[in-house]
């Protein structure tokens, strides 16, 4: 397999993990566990929309922070030229 194919596969894996994390977390934050009706109530729908937007933004912020931490770590282990 070429490098491109592996990259595409990992991109898909990252998107699935992000989507699943968002769905599980926002379900817990926005949907109470007693089911009176199958449709989403107005309140649940608004909560889910805001939760989705916030989750994706926060996740990108965390990604940047993790990469920063990794770079400082890598730099600190670099043999001092």
């Amino acid at each position: 397999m070429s490098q491109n194919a592996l990259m595409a596969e990992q991109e898909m894996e990252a998107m699935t993990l992000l989507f699943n994390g968002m769905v599980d977390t926002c379900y817990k934050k926005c949907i109470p566990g007693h089911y009176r009706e199958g449709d989403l109530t107005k309140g649940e729908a608004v909560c889910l929309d805001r939760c989705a937007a916030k989750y994706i933004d926060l996740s990108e912020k965390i990604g940047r922070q993790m990469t920063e931490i990794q770079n400082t770590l890598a730099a600190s282990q670099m043999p001092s030229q």
Partner: protein
Amino acid sequence: MDFSALNNEDRVYIEKVMEKKQMQDFLQLYSKLSIRCFSDCVNDFSTRTITDKESACTTLCVEKFIKMSQRMSQRFAEQHMINQQ
């Protein structure tokens, strides 16, 4: 995801990966729904058959979860497009 950069052999590989993933996602959703709706709806172990109340609760639980994940797919697609620009 833009796969135009991939040559033929890679494209076939990715399509097979995606096909397997789709099956995997369906099985995972099915398992997650069974665990969640059973935990939320079934609490009467004085009998080995599902009561009407438990069955009704489960139907609503499945419907609610699927409608929720459909809505989230739309938001995910929109939000992701915005951030990619």
